[in-house]
């Protein structure tokens, strides 16, 4: 198997998982796993109207490429692609996609899971939820104490 392909993008454009996986797939790859994270209409019991994602874009692209490369080193995959959207998103729109293609399904699932968990832990992106009642809040999924998460 040749060196795995890595794609990592931070973009304000709408995301398309099928398009990303089509770009990555080769005839050696029998398994494709695409994860898509979408804007839900509620969170922690509150009605969400829309979201805004803010990124430290230059760093986030590096970190996303690092995460994808780590997954490609750990698992026997042909390619790992990940993209995160920034700016304002409506309900139902995709905020993140992860596409992994691999000769076999076990590696594809595991690499996919690795990437999305790492994104949630350390991609420098922030989410501001705007609620149906007109208020808004910044979310953070883990404490920011100390050094690198």
């Amino acid at each position, binding site marked *: 198997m040749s060196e795995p392909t890595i794609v990592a993008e931070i973009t304000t454009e709408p995301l398309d998982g099928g398009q990303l996986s089509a770009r990555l797939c080769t005839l050696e790859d029998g398994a494709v796993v695409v994860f898509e*994270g979408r804007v839900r209409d509620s969170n922690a019991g509150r009605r969400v109207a829309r979201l805004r*994602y*803010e*990124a*430290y874009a*230059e*760093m*986030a692209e*590096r970190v996303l490429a690092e995460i994808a490369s780590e997954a490609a080193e750990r698992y026997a995959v042909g390619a790992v692609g990940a993209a*995160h959207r920034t700016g304002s998103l409506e309900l139902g729109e995709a*905020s*993140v996609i992860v596409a992994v293609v691999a000769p076999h399904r076990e590696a594809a699932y595991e690499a996919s899971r690795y990437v*999305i968990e790492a*994104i*949630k*832990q*350390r*991609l*420098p*992106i*922030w*989410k*501001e939820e705007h609620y149906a009642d007109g208020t808004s809040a*910044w*979310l*953070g*999924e*883990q*404490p*920011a*104490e*100390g*050094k*690198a*998460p």
Partner: protein
Amino acid sequence: MWDQTPQSPIGNSPSVAASTVAVRVLLFGVYRELAGRPELQIELPSGSSLAELVTELRALPGLERLPERPAVARNLKYASLSEILDPADEVALIPPVAGG
């Protein structure tokens, strides 16, 4: 513990010109809102650590609510607060991330 006055020229620094470091500090999300701005320029004595930079920042209006030990990045990489600042470093304060 440090102030922003340049170190005395008779200090330990071998080069007089390097007695302070100027760093660019980027603020995101809730930290940006606390500061009321996305970016600051801070001058610190040479040899200052990231922890010392954070102490300086927490003395600024609005940033009192910054955690004592926030996550930080130095030149696009997560960094330890014990790291010593280099001149022209780009430092970012990283609020709890919420990607995905």
